[in-house]
């Protein structure tokens, strides 16, 4: 029996949008147990929302996450608009879907890049992030911001998309589609990536059900769920698209789902842009006078899975209770099953596989001896360990 060591991932860690702490208890190189600790950056947003007007809440929830900053307003809009039963104009529905899907494209590109970096494929990282830039530029042209778009409001959207912007967007999408094909080829056919990702961090359909995991994490385990299809909102029931699933449940399957989803998103945006031509320009908003007493439950499919908002109104200006659940809340605990039994060098990619939001670029993980508290390994060395594994595999496979 070797000595049992504690490998802390966090509290500050580039895999995580906000400080969180994973304690990996290891025996030798094998992970035996994972404990999740959080709350390092609890901002009390649910409580804060209760002091804002229904309109202002949009711009508070937008700031929950910088990467998927339209997903929360999307779910909140679905929740709050359902209380008075507002039917938003068709044009606003298409614009909402366009913004939502553009976000999925840039978020998935970001994930592919980071996953590449953790594996020691910095070329993939450079490519993916380079191709993501034009998507962010498009956001700036359409919404006025590369992030935190402030596009949604009660009853519709705040800005229209002009035919010139639509033409520009189409051009960018064609380019992104070509580059996605290049990335898909680079990732799916590489024998070393196969060796690093296949059979790593497996989650079964049963695990997914137990934890209530959602999004690409669930779909990669053969669980065919997607709020956009199951409980359609915005324009998703007016266009033709399909839900991507895979069956293996490992990290490779999750990468596959995300890569192929980008094609679907691009196709959705193109169809929406086409449909915009048939609706009247400027008809993007209906006036909503007040939110009557009642309960609104809304959800939306973010790049990482279902975002869930519960809003209770007593007829006043602000919600009396606003409950928010981001997809990572139910996806992150799955590490308890996906990392256990694997090696430390696979833990980085297994935890990255559910795509917990990345924002911080600091990494402060260290490996300590569990019994003596002696420092063994730093975060940079941990990434090096993962990258070296790929290097050795490359040498072994002679590629």
């Amino acid at each position, binding site marked *: 029996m070797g000595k049992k060591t504690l490998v802390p991932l966090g509290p500050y860690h580039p895999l995580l949008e906000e400080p969180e702490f994973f304690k990996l208890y290891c025996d030798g190189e094998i992970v035996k147990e994972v404990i*999740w600790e*959080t*709350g390092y950056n*609890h901002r*009390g947003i*649910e*409580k804060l929302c209760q002091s804002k007007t229904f309109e202002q809440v949009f711009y508070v929830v937008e700031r929950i996450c910088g990467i998927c900053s339209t997903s929360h307003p999307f779910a909140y809009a679905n929740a709050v608009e*359902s*209380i008075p*039963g507002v039917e938003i104009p068709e044009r606003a529905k298409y614009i909402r879907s366009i913004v939502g899907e553009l976000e999925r494209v840039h978020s998935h590109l970001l994930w592919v890049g980071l996953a590449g970096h953790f594996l020691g494929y910095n070329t993939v990282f450079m490519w993916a992030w380079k191709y993501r830039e034009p998507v962010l530029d498009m956001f700036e042209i359409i919404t006025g911001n590369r992030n935190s778009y402030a596009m949604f409001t009660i009853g519709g959207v705040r800005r229209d998309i002009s035919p010139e912007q639509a033409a520009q967007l189409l051009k960018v999408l064609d380019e992104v589609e070509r580059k996605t094909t290049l990335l898909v080829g680079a990732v799916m056919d590489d024998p070393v990536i196969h060796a690093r990702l296949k059979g790593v961090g497996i989650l079964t359909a049963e695990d997914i*059900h*137990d*934890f*209530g*995991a*959602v999004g690409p994490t669930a779909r990669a385990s053969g669980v065919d*769920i997607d709020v956009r299809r*199951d*409980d*359609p909102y915005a324009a998703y029931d007016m266009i033709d698209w399909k839900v991507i699933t895979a069956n293996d449940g490992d990290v490779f399957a999750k990468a596959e789902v995300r890569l192929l989803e980008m094609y679907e998103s691009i196709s959705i945006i193109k169809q929406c842009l086409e449909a915009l031509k048939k609706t009247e320009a400027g008809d993007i908003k209906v006036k909503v006078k007040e939110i009557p007493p*009642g*309960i*609104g*439950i809304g*959800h939306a499919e973010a790049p990482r899975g*279902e975002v*869930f908002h*519960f809003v*209770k109104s007593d007829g006043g200006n602000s919600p*009396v*209770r606003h*409950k928010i*659940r981001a997809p990572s*809340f*139910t996806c992150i*605990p799955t590490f308890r099953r996906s990392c256990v039994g694997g090696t430390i060098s696979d833990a980085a990619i297994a935890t990255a596989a559910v795509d917990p939001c990345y924002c911080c670029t600091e990494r402060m993980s260290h490996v300590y001896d569990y019994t003596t508290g002696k420092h063994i390994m730093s975060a940079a060395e941990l990434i090096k360990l993962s990258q070296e594994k790929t290097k050795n595999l490359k040498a072994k496979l002679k590629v």
Partner: protein
Amino acid sequence: MDIEQYIKDIKIKFPKIIDAEVVNTKRLMIYIPKSSLLQIAEYLFKYLAYRYIIVTAMDSKEGYEIIYHFSDDSSGWIVNLNVMLDRDKPEIESLTPVVYGVEWIEREIMDLLGITFLNHPKPERFLFAEDWPEGKYPLRRDYVEEE
């Protein structure tokens, strides 16, 4: 989903259900006593294979209200179990033995509203730091922020 038939059937199956109503489009709220929670949640989660979404807790006028959200992804309906807890004795059986993923949200509710979940496998602080004062619950109506 024929909702009227659904409500009728579930009321026959679990006679302890206090009431059930459609609160919004495709959103069903079932009011239950706390003693039936485990039994009804098990039926929804295990037998009907509904997806567990999350648990919402709030300080309502009548007491502490806990809502367990489940999703029927085949129809798009969200089925909610609503339990009202006494303000003097805010405790309820933990749902973790039935729905594994509930562990973390129950700990969050313990922190924010001070509700006790009986037989919880790890009833420790989740969001708050070790030095957060005992008995201070930010989501309670009587919570006053200190300077």
